[in-house]
């Protein structure tokens, strides 16, 4: 595995890596370019996540009903509602995923085309000394990673957020004391997340740079 200490110092002639404010402004720009598509996809994801939460809620009803004594007809009835929500969740998921993947492809295409356009405008020396490995890694692997974020991570994040929020609200409705165990988990999560985020960016930057080196050697060898 990686034995060398992760150094984020790129080779002197590699293309620069954007700082956070540049990344943020690029993201803002991205949202501004496709506001309708993004909010449409996000809404679909939120609805799908909401439909998915019906199952535990209906199960609670069912357990309560069984506990209080009920008929099989009632059980069948609730099961039908459960099936209805499942169907809704399926359809919503299909279109949510489709929309975000299509959007992802569009964003990726824009990104790599912008990148190449910019690279073409750079001074020749900068592009040549960066080498084709760096250029290839950025247009393929890095763009692909971003695509993964747009297609998967963003929706997953939205779904997780909706689920967590709804679960907390549901817990409060059941009784405030149910919140306590939920909150118990927060400190370790926060600590772990801080620990991870402090290291992750440098680690990933280092990884990306290694891919550039590997691709450069491979391109030259071929």
């Amino acid at each position, binding site marked *: *595995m990686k*034995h060398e200490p992760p150094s984020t110092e790129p*080779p*002197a*002639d590699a293309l620069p890596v954007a700082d956070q404010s540049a990344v943020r402004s690029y993201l803002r720009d991205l949202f501004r370019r496709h506001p309708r598509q993004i909010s449409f996809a996000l809404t679909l994801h939120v609805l*799908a996540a909401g439909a*998915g939460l019906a*199952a535990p809620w209906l*199960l609670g009803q*069912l*357990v309560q009903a*069984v506990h209080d004594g*009920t*008929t*099989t007809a009632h*059980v*069948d009835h609730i*099961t039908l509602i*459960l*099936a209805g929500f*499942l*169907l809704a*969740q*399926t359809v919503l*998921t*299909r*279109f949510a*995923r*489709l929309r975000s*993947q*299509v959007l992802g*492809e*569009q964003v990726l*295409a824009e990104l*790599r*085309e912008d990148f*190449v356009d910019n*690279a*073409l405008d750079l001074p*020749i020396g900068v*592009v*040549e*000394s*960066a*080498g*084709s*490995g760096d*250029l*290839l890694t950025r*247009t*393929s692997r890095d763009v692909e990673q971003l695509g993964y974020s747009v297609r998967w991570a963003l929706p997953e994040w939205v779904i997780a957020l909706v689920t967590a929020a709804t679960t907390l609200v549901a817990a409060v409705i059941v009784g405030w004391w149910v919140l306590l165990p939920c909150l118990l988990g927060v400190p370790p999560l926060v600590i772990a997340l801080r620990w991870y985020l402090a290291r992750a960016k440098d680690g990933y930057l280092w990884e990306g740079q290694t*891919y550039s080196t*590997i*691709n*450069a050697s*491979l*391109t*030259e*060898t*071929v």
Partner: protein
Amino acid sequence: MRTLPLEHPGQADARTPWRFLGWVLRGQWRTVAMGMVFGVTWMTCSAVVPAVIGKAIDAGVTGRDPHELEKWAAILFGIGVLQSTSGIMRHRFAVTNWLTAAYRVVQLVTRQATHLGATLSKRVATGEVVAIGTNDLSHVGNAMDVLARAMGSLVSFVVVAVILLQTSVTLGLVVLLGVPLLLLCLGPLLSPLQKRNLEQREMMGHLANVATDIVSGLRVLRGIGGERVFSERYRAESQKVRYAGVRVAGLQSILDALQVFLPGVFVVVVVWLGARFAVQDRITPGELVAFYGYAAFLVLPLRTATEAANKWIRAYVAAGRIATVLRLEPDVDDPADPAAAPAAGSELVDVASGLRVAPGLLTALVSDPPEDAALVVDRLGRFVEGDVRWGGVPLERLPRALVRERIVVSDTAAVLFSGPLGDQLRAGRSESAAVEEALHTAAAADVLDALPARLDTVVAEKGRSFSGGQRQRLVLARALARESDVLLLVEATSAVDAHTEARIAERLVRLRAGRTTVITTSSPLLLSHAERVAFLRDGRVTAEGTHAELLATCPAYRTVVTREEADEEAAR
């Protein structure tokens, strides 16, 4: 864990894609097995959680026994700790497995590329090979990565089925038969999805080709203002990749939705049956919650199973491409029963041209037309097949590695590689004294002096940071530093000025004294220093002697050489 890159990537079984993947798997079976152990522990922990919660509800909550409740809560906590620990370990091993496989692939492909030499670019497009580095290795890595979770899914599925069978035969059977059935439902979707992925992957290969062209062609393009053309070409290819991606999304999103739907059906059926059983008092409310827990848990193994199938299909496609490259055989191959190596200082003879390279001397090769000389060198260095005898032994009866080791060719296609300058000059073996001497001979010492980090200077791709003349001198120094028995140089000083060329010629004779050297040239400066000159006309040696003798006796030679001289005069 292990050190990467691997000491030696091994001899790959590239007969079929599956064999290749199996071979990669065998090569790292230890870490894969460890990953599986932790994967199984991790998933099994999740699988038994519903059972524990069910017990806690029945014994603790419904039974109103605080001791029981505490007991089961403590057990649940223990399972949680075990689950997270094994989860972390599983992840670590998964990353190791990913990296090991990816490194092995890239090492294999790089080795194969050097093994094939010139053959590779004739058979496969550069972008195709580069796409292995940017894309295919990830897919092989993913296939190894997912194994730990796949095994965990399989075992936890069996555990859940066994637990359910003990509570209710009907429910147990629903799980045991239902899960494989659901997986089969996804099957028909995977193959078209794979086809569309393949399409997109091919387009990405084209796109990589265009990106490579940009770096190599930018200098020329700038000169003629062709950036827009490039930009538009890239845009067109990029849009093709996008549309291929949208086609993938159409199917992929259905697969994603089915991954919600099919396990959902399962949950509905299990809950429905469970609730009916509970109403009939055949099971407790706690068990009903547990059933729901199992059914909801099974979403994870089901997803992992489809994910694994998907990743392995992609890996299969990637392995197919990798195996194709690995299966290629070089045009120039090793003999089945190699002959004994000829002694140092054996005579090298090119039968087709009639050239006999005198051992231990510096021979200059002049030809009309000029390109014939390079062809002779290609044969002598066994870059192409030809009837060449070395100390009486046909060159094709000798192992290629031996020929490459003892006969070094530096032709006009030789380029500097990126990386520390010293690494390629030393080529992993030469003494530093030999490097110093080689740099001096090639009149490249001043190039080195101008570099702040000297031999540790990192060279840009293809040595683009140096001027043409500097590059040529460094390439010459690299060839000289090998101190080979036979050195074949093609137009090695064409880009340096006359003054430098004269210095190089003088030093070259001294450095290579007693060893065989051939240099193709038509420069009088070099020719006057050469110990022998051979003149090729239409591919045959027609005259031999010293430069002065040939000038005096061979009018055709005189014409070629003086033409060169006139050109040089004109250039000044």
